């Protein structure tokens, strides 16, 4: 076998094993989704394990009721979407029980009752809702805080700005872009205790219930067990122990981090394994996507210059569709929309969905410049080859492609770098790659600047290495 054949076989084998894994993993075991950054209900502790009130309650109930489950930590928004699309069996993510949500989900008995508070920057002069007039308020999408703030928006005359992530919301208030944020009381007070430079300036409003959710009419068995288990752990005192543990202790005692380790180097060594696994995921995604996108791009490029009308038409249509679609929309469509469309509980693992997303998007871009590269080869080359009696495909392979590919090399290098960077967008479907790793670490230690600097440097280092490698290949080819 030639080298490229080996590579293709390896990619196919890897794909196959993923699909196999995806289909065996769903037998009997429930998949329960949770948020990634909602301390003290859920957050990632050092070493990548998730902790928090939700996680511990779920765990205790599962033990009592013999529920087998796999925890899937993704953003709150994605968790809710996936539950309604049947991609996961349940969600426990500090989710408020609302009449709206009851239309789509069935909820357990309330396992926690919480109110909404307003928080402002430490030195802020905002003391009450009245002071918000004309100012901007930061909210996290889908939270009770957001619903409450929205309901008083016109009364107090403030503007609203939405975030997907608590930390970004806090930061926006901290740096003064927004005057205040609305957040569940336990979440806010936990954050402040752990170093967020905000202060709570209101009492608790709109006390709301947190419930465990399943899709309406589905998994009734799971819901029943959850309720029974909840009763049991409340009765035997486990429940109180869990809640007390998180609400009355600081983050460092939970995650094992100490204040002295908050230097750049300290943070780096402490989070090395988490960052390492995120980096590995990024590299894996990048390499596989580059291979697949290159294959797809070559096929599109060849179709694009084929004689006749059909090939070029197919090629331009595919390029048009997938180049025109924002990567994030495509990712959501493939991960959430597409399985929904197929129905029958069809699921695509996030990694596969991410890979397909990148393949289609980067493949379309690649197809466009591959086609251009082939077209840039002088027409006389094809004529000379054909006049010697070479069939079309032989002429293509031996004469046009080698020349075209040489023209394309700079575009390929560029595309590889773009692919690497685009993997970060896949964090929206819950893939814990390098960028998402950063979000997760910051969610528990609030060291935004240092961690993002770290992540940025890592990206630059890989891109530099990738560029060197590509230049070396280019030099060898010329």
């Amino acid at each position, binding site marked *: 076998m030639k080298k490229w054949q080996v590579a293709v076989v390896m990619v196919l084998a890897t794909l196959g094993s993923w699909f196999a894994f995806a289909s065996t993993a769903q037998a009997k075991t429930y998949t329960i989704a949770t948020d990634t950054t909602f301390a003290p209900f859920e957050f990632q502790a050092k070493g990548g394990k998730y902790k928090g009130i939700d996680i511990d309650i779920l765990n205790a109930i599962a033990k009592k009721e013999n529920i087998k489950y796999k925890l899937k930590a993704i953003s709150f928004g994605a968790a809710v979407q996936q539950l309604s699309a049947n991609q996961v069996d349940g969600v426990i993510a500090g989710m408020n029980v609302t009449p709206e949500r009851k239309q789509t989900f069935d909820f357990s008995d309330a396992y926690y009752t919480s109110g909404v508070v307003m928080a402002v920057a430490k030195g802020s002069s905002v003391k009450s809702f009245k002071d918000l007039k004309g100012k901007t308020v930061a909210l996290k999408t889908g939270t009770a805080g957001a619903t409450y703030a929205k309901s008083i928006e016109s009364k107090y005359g403030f503007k609203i700005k939405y975030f997907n992530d608590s930390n970004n919301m806090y930061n926006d208030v901290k740096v003064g872009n927004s005057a205040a944020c609305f957040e569940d009381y336990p979440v806010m007070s936990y954050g402040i205790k752990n170093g967020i430079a905000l202060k709570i300036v209101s009492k608790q409003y709109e006390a709301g219930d947190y419930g465990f959710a399943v899709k309406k009419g589905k998994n009734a068995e799971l819901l029943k067990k959850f309720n029974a288990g909840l009763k049991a752990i409340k009765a035997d005192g486990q429940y109180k122990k869990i809640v007390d543990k998180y609400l009355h202790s600081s983050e460092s005692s939970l995650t094992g981090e100490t204040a002295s380790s908050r230097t750049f180097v300290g943070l780096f060594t402490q989070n090395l394994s988490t960052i390492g696994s995120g980096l590995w995921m990024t590299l894996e995604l990048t390499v596989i996507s580059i291979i697949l996108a290159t294959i797809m791009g070559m096929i599109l490029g060849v179709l694009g210059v084929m004689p006749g009308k059909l090939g070029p038409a197919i090629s331009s249509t595919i390029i048009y569709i997938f180049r025109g679609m924002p990567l994030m929309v495509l990712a959501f469509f493939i991960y959430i929309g597409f399985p929904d469309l197929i129905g029958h509980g069809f699921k695509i693992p996030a990694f596969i969905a991410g890979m397909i997303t990148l393949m289609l998007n980067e493949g379309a871009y690649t197809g466009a410049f591959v086609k251009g590269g082939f077209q840039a080869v*002088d027409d*006389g*080359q094809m*004529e*000379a*080859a*054909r*006049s*010697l*009696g*070479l*069939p079309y495909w*032989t002429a293509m392979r*031996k*004469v046009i492609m*080698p*020349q075209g590919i*040489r023209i394309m090399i700079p575009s390929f290098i560029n595309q590889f770098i773009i692919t690497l960077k685009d993997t970060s967008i896949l964090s929206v479907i819950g893939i814990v790659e390098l960028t998402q790793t950063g979000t997760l670490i910051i969610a528990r230690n609030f060291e935004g600047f240092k961690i993002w600097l770290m992540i940025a440097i890592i990206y630059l280092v890989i891109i530099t290495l990738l560029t060197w490698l590509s230049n070396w290949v280019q030099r060898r080819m010329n």
Partner: protein
Amino acid sequence: MAKVIVKDLHKSYGDNEVLKGLNLEVEDNEVVCMIGPSGSGKSTFLRCLNDLEVPTKGQIVISGYDLSDKGTNINLVRENIGMVFQHFNLFPHLTVMQNITLAPVQLKKESKETADATAHELLKTVGLADKADAMPNSLSGGQQQRVAIARALAMKPKIMLFDEPTSALDPEMVGDVLDVMKKLAAGGMTMIVVTHEMGFAKEVADRVVFMADGLIQESGKPDDVFDHPKSPRLQDFLNKVINV
């Protein structure tokens, strides 16, 4: 039977009719030189002969193969027709040697070893024995064109088509290329040569064909055509060519 038979050949690009019912027969071992003003359709005609252009109407029979017949394997016909282009069209990513051996090896006409040996012979014939491993871009125009001729000959064609093979060359390179073509003609190759080299046509051609407005206006022995042109179009053309 004649080697090349062209009957009532028409070719249009959209509304533009370039060939308007052309008839020509070329015998075995015959050398036909084709002259005519720019845009008269000479290249189009040559390109029709090996199906690089598909005629709108008419019949072309080459060595007994009818090109308009759907059952004809065009690649097989092309193996019998060598074509040399004005701009050489060598493959720039391959060495001189690889340019020459690509088609014979790919089409399994010859093993790599035999093809290499043949190529060396051909390079000797065109006077470039020492350039086997050179890249085309390192050669002069005249050298490139001689490699292109060798490349076409490597398929052992029965007919050679030349489309203004020397008009992109510096004057001092023209002689070398024409010498190679003379050798070929002397060896009995059937050739159709579109050229502005009147000296070459006079010396080598068995017949000279004058083309204008998509039709053959006049043809005959070189002496007759050049010294006693009948049609005013040809007289006019010759005056212009000779006076520049």
